[in-house]
C-alpha cells in the first residue's frame, strides 16, 4: 500500500446543500499534500470526512489502509494519525504539560513515554519554559504550536493539519513550517489545508485545488504554474515612481502597486529593454528590476476566480 489517504467519490450534503461533490484523490506515503480552496469551497468538510468526524453521503475513505466509515477501523487509523482540526484550541484551563498528558493518555501511551515525548515536543516548539503555565495566558501562536505538539504526541506516521499556520505571527508560522519539513524528512505523510499560497508553494509536493465542492486541479506546484500562460511579468521600481503604460509596447497589462509596477508580458526580454529605455528617456533611477514567473497565487486566481464560494 503506497497511499496514506485514499478518497474515492466523496460526496457530502448538508441538507440540500452539496458541500463536496464526488471528490477523489490520494495522498502518497511520505509526501506533503496541500489542499487549497477559497472560503466555503469544501476544504474543512473534506478534512472532517477524512478524519471521521462527518459521515459522507457516498464515497469511500481509507486512511493508512483503514476504512474510515467503520467505527472500529476509524479508531485504529486515528491511533496512527495526528490531527489538528480547523480553529481548534487546547484546554485553556489546563497547563501545556497537562494538555499533552491528556492527549498521550487518549493515545494509550504509558506514563514515562508521555513525559519523555512531552518534554521533547515542548522544547521543539519553544514552550518548555511555559510548560506549567495555564494555556489561557498563551498567545495565539503559542496555542497553535501546542495544538500541533498535541497532535504529534504519539509520533504519528500521518499528520492531518487544517490551516496550521492561519493567522500566526511570522516566527510561529516559520517554526511550524520547519517542523512540518522535518517530519517529512523523517518519512511522515502530511495532509494540510491552507489559504497561504507561499506556504503551499514552499512546503507541498502536490496540491489539490477545490472549488464549490469539486476538485478542479491536482498536480505538483510547478506543473500547476504551467497552466497559467502569459503570466510572466517584470516588476520594476523607479525613483521617482512614474510609469506610462502606453509607452511599453510589449506589455499586455500593467498593475501599479505602491512604489513599484508589475508589467505582464509575453516577451520579457523586450519588456526589460523597453523599461530601461523608458527610465533613460524620463531621467528615472531604476531602484529594482526583476522578472517573475507565474506564482501559485496566479494559478489559484485563474482556476478559482476572485471571489469566495
Amino acid at each position, binding site marked *: 500500500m503506497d497511499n496514506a489517504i485514499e478518497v474515492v467519490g466523496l460526496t457530502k450534503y448538508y441538507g440540500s446543500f452539496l458541500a463536496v461533490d464526488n471528490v477523489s484523490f490520494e495522498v502518497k506515503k511520505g509526501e506533503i499534500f496541500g489542499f487549497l480552496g477559497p472560503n466555503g469551497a469544501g476544504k474543512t468538510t473534506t478534512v472532517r470526512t477524512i478524519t471521521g468526524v462527518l459521515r459522507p453521503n457516498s464515497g469511500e475513505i481509507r486512511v493508512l489502509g483503514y476504512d474510515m466509515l467503520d467505527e472500529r477501523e476509524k479508531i485504529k487509523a486515528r491511533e496512527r494519525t495526528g490531527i489538528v482540526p480547523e*480553529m481548534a484550541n487546547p484546554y485553556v484551563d489546563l497547563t501545556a504539560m497537562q494538555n499533552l498528558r491528556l492527549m498521550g493518555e*487518549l*493515545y494509550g501511551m504509558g506514563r514515562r513515554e508521555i513525559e519523555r515525548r512531552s518534554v521533547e515536543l515542548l522544547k521543539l516548539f519553544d514552550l518548555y519554559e511555559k510548560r506549567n503555565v495555564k494555556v489561557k495566558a498563551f498567545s495565539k501562536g503559542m496555542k497553535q504550536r501546542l495544538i500541533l505538539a498535541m497532535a504529534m504526541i504519539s509520533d504519528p506516521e500521518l499528520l492531518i493539519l487544517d490551516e496550521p499556520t492561519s493567522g500566526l505571527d511570522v516566527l510561529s508560522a516559520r517554526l511550524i513550517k520547519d517542523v512540518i519539513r522535518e517530519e517529512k524528512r523523517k518519512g511522515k505523510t502530511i495532509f494540510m489545508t491552507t489559504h497561504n499560497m507561499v506556504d503551499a508553494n514552499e512546503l507541498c509536493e502536490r496540491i489539490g485545488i477545490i472549488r464549490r465542492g469539486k476538485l478542479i486541479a491536482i498536480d505538483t506546484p510547478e506543473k500547476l504554474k504551467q497552466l497559467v500562460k502569459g503570466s510572466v511579468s517584470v516588476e520594476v521600481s523607479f525613483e521617482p515612481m512614474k510609469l506610462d503604460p502606453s509607452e511599453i509596447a510589449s506589455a499586455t497589462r500593467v498593475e501599479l502597486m505602491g512604489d513599484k509596477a508589475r508589467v505582464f508580458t509575453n516577451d520579457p526580454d523586450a519588456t526589460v529593454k523597453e523599461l530601461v529605455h523608458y527610465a533613460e528617456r524620463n531621467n528615472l533611477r531604476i531602484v529594482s528590476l526583476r522578472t517573475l514567473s507565474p506564482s501559485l497565487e496566479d494559478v489559484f486566481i485563474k482556476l478559482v476566480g476572485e471571489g469566495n464560494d
Partner: protein
Amino acid sequence: MIETLKRSFAIAKKDMRIFYLKGPVVIMGLLFPFFLFLAFMIGRNLSGGHLLVGLTAMTAFFTSTAVGPTIIPWECRGRTFERLITAPVSLTTVLLGDFQASLYFGLAITFAIAVPAMLYLSVRPAIWLFVLSTLLAVGCFSAMTVLMSSYPPTDVPADVMMLSSLVKFSLLFISGIFVPIENLPAYGRWISLVSPLTYYVDALRHSLGKGYLPVWLDLLMLALFGFAFFFTGTAIHRKVLERRFT
C-alpha cells in the same frame, strides 16, 4: 475494554480539573441544594430520619447533575470538542468520561454531606442499603446528564442548564421528598413513578425501615433508568453530532 476505561478516565480527569470549579457547577451543585434544603427544613417539625433522607436525596440529585449537562456545550464553545473526538476514542468513550466526572463529583459531595449529617442527627440507617442505593442513584443521575447534554446540540451552556433545571425541578417535586409517596393522591403516586429520584428517596427510607415500594424494585429501577439514560443519550449524541459542526 480496559483500554476504553483508561481513556475514559483520562477524559474524566480533564473534566474534573476544568469543570468542577466553574461558577454554574458550584451554584447548581453546591449552593442551590444547600438553600433548597434550608427551605425544606425551616419552619417544619421534621424528624431526623426525614431530614437525612431529604438532605441526602437533594444533595445526590443536584451534585451529580451539576457538571454533566454543560461539558459538551462548553467544549464546543471553547473549540476543544473536535480535537477530543478526533483522538483515538469513540464518542461513547468520551461520554463515559463525562459520566464519570459527574459520578465522582456526586459521590464525593453526597457522602461528605451525608456522613456528618448522620452523626449530627444521630440517625443510623442500614449502611449497606444506604451506600448501595446512593451508588446506584448517583450513577443513574450522572447518566441522566448524558441525556440532558445531548439535545439541543448547542454551544451555549446556559441553554442546556435552563432545560436541565426545568427537568430537575419537575422531578424534585414529584419524588416524595417534600410529600411522602404514600401521602400523595393516587394520580400523584402514578406520576411519581416516572421519576428515578422517587426510587432513591424510597430506598433511603427503606434504609431507615419505612419504605413504600419494594426495595428490590427501587434498586432495579435506578439501574434500569441509569442504563436507559446513558444509551438513549449516547444514541442522540451520535445522531446530532454533525449538527455541532455545521
